[in-house]
């Protein structure tokens, strides 16, 4: 009998294509929008998770200012060099080196000033004073030349990012050329490889000009520590090392925790936290759109039922039971919602391809999402079809036969 209902449903859907389309609209919009939102979320989550996991597990980042632990995570938040209230001192860096379990410490100091080459200023770069373990810590290879060694810490050398090489020197490997910072001459000894786009980078390497810390200090002026990277000893538990650092620095800061010690796991947690919130939001959107879609189906099914009063009367007169009428009308909303879900999925898949082609975003629509959203859509359709179908089933055959519709 179910097959029979199915055929009848198809027949009546075919018989009124426009109205059927209208009925499906809510479901189509619900399914496609929810799938696109979820797909975008999944895509960004995948990108971020991948970037986070690329960072060495033993990396700890100390930044000035207190970051609320549940502060929404984003690439920009981590990448930005803006210091919140509070600051890190050279003393903090030195003391961190003494903390148990710390393998190496690399400061990132912002040097005020502009670099120039051939009397051309380079405004869009950052001059950073740092120490030799940096490339290892950031897993950022040097493409030409080499990073400065501990022995070179007082020499006037520089390692530049890809963008600096291209924009300031206008050549791929300006190793051996020199640039000027505040009248001092620095010889380029290395050029970084292009930093991977969108990496979980706490530092933009591409437009950086890196000087040895000691040499930069000789420039005079202040060096502001924007962050300090710590590598924990491989055998140590990163969290406990981070805890030790925190304790030590609180002492330095007169008991105030006006800095943030971040480990990779925390970054991951923050990511998950953010995506949990995103998921809740998405579920809310989905819920609302399906309610709207369901009301749409119910509305039009009610209209359909009154429009087809006479048909119902005829069917009953020739022997359809109320249950059969019920089954038939429910099947109609089932078929409509399945069709709607299918069209919605198709639209979502098409849109995701379009989004991939036209933007940087990489929406991911997994089969799981397709199944889940379709099931919800169909459940919505069936639920909304029940009341109108019950109304149809209850109709009195004689009254219905008398009806003009």
């Amino acid at each position: 009998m179910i097959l029979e209902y199915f055929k009848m449903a198809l027949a009546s859907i075919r018989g009124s294509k426009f109205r059927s389309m209208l009925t499906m609209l809510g479901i189509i919009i619900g399914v496609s929008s929810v799938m696109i939102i979820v797909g975008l979320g999944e895509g960004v989550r995948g990108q971020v998770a991948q970037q986070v996991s690329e960072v060495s597990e033993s990396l700890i980042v100390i930044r000035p200012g207190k970051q609320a632990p549940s502060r929404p995570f984003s690439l920009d938040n981590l990448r930005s060099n803006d210091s919140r209230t509070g600051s890190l001192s050279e003393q903090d860096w030195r003391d961190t080196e003494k903390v148990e379990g710390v393998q190496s410490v690399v400061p990132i100091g912002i040097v005020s000033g502009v670099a120039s080459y051939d009397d051309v200023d380079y405004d869009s770069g950052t001059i950073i004073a740092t120490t030799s373990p940096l490339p290892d810590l950031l897993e950022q290879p040097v493409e030409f030349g080499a990073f400065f060694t501990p022995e070179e810490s007082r020499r006037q050398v520089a390692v530049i990012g890809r963008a600096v090489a291209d924009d300031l020197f206008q050549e791929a490997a300006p190793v051996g050329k020199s640039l000027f910072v505040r009248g001092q001459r620095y010889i380029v000894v290395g050029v970084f490889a292009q930093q991977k786009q969108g990496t979980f980078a706490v530092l933009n390497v591409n437009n950086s000009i890196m000087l040895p810390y000691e040499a930069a200090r000789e420039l005079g002026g202040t060096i502001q520590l924007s962050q300090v990277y710590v590598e924990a000893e491989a055998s140590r538990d990163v969290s406990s090392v981070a805890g030790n650092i925190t304790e030590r620095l609180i002492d330095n800061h007169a008991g105030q925790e006006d800095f943030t010690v971040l480990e990779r796991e925390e970054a991951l947690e923050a990511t998950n936290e953010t995506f949990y919130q995103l998921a809740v939001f998405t579920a809310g959107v989905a819920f609302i759109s399906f309610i709207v879609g369901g009301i749409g189906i119910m509305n039009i099914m009610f209209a359909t039922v009154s429009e087809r009063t006479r048909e119902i009367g005829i069917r009953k007169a020739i022997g359809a039971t109320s249950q059969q009428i019920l089954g038939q009308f429910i099947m109609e909303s089932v078929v409509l919602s399945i069709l709607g879900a299918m069209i919605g999925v198709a639209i979502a898949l098409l849109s995701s391809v379009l989004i991939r082609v036209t933007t940087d975003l990489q929406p991911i629509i997994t089969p799981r999402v397709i199944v889940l959203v379709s099931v919800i859509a169909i459940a919505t359709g069936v639920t909304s079809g029940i009341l109108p179908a019950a109304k149809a089933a209850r109709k009195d055959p004689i009254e219905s036969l008398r009806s003009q519709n």
Partner: protein
Amino acid sequence: MPLIEIKELSKVYGFGDATTIALDEISLSINRGEFIAIMGPSGSGKTTLMNILGLLDRPTHGEYKLSNQHVERKTKIAQAMIRRDNIGFIFQSFNLLPRLTIIENVALPLAYKGVYQKRRLKAAEVVLDQVGLSDKEYYYPNQLSGGQLQRVAIARALINDPSIIIADEPTGNLDSVSARVVMELLKEVHELGNTVLMVTHNPSLTRYADRIIYMHDGNIVYDESTAVGEVPKRVQKAVEALRTSTDDDKLADVSAMMEEMPEQLSIKPVPKKSKSKSKSKTKVKSTRKKGKKK
């Protein structure tokens, strides 16, 4: 044993001052194979009686036994199934589903019985052939004439091989020629052994029946078996006697048309001629008590 047996059956609509007694303690028994014409002025309760006999409606009081079984208090599902298996309806306004093809319309009762589509359509082909519409199987109802539509409706009523055919004014919407074709077809159906209950306002059509029941104000005022092919004198008399108004000339028109109707009609599946010549020369002005409300 009668096929249908009703005892003191009443149908009351409304309550208080607005009460209408549509059927007033009617008793009636109908045997298998009878062709009954039911006449009576508008509002006399003919449709009400047909609906109750067809299990579309329930009586307020009284008994209804179909094939010796009480059916008046059965559940709606049970009644629907009896309706499906035992009763074929033919309506004045055809009542075909506009979005289904002719053959699908005819096959529809079998769908609700759970017969597979292939067998269903095959059965529909057979009955459509019986009513002479094999060539119209895949047409839609709006592509057929009224007379053809009513033949489709007859085919649909026949498909379940029902024990009773209930036809409420089957020729009411038809011109005289189509009406005649339909009546000849009903006659065929009757001759095949079916029980036919037909409501009509046209006295001349009673010649197809072998029993005539005349209703008035919810009562059966006249019930007589006649030879098929005759319009009994008493029907004419009763009609005259009960005439209460002359505002509706429709019946007179029908009668006039019946006179002009060609004597011989070529009816495809029914090659037989009518058993006797039409005796419907009576000019019945009107049997209408009051304007028929639609």
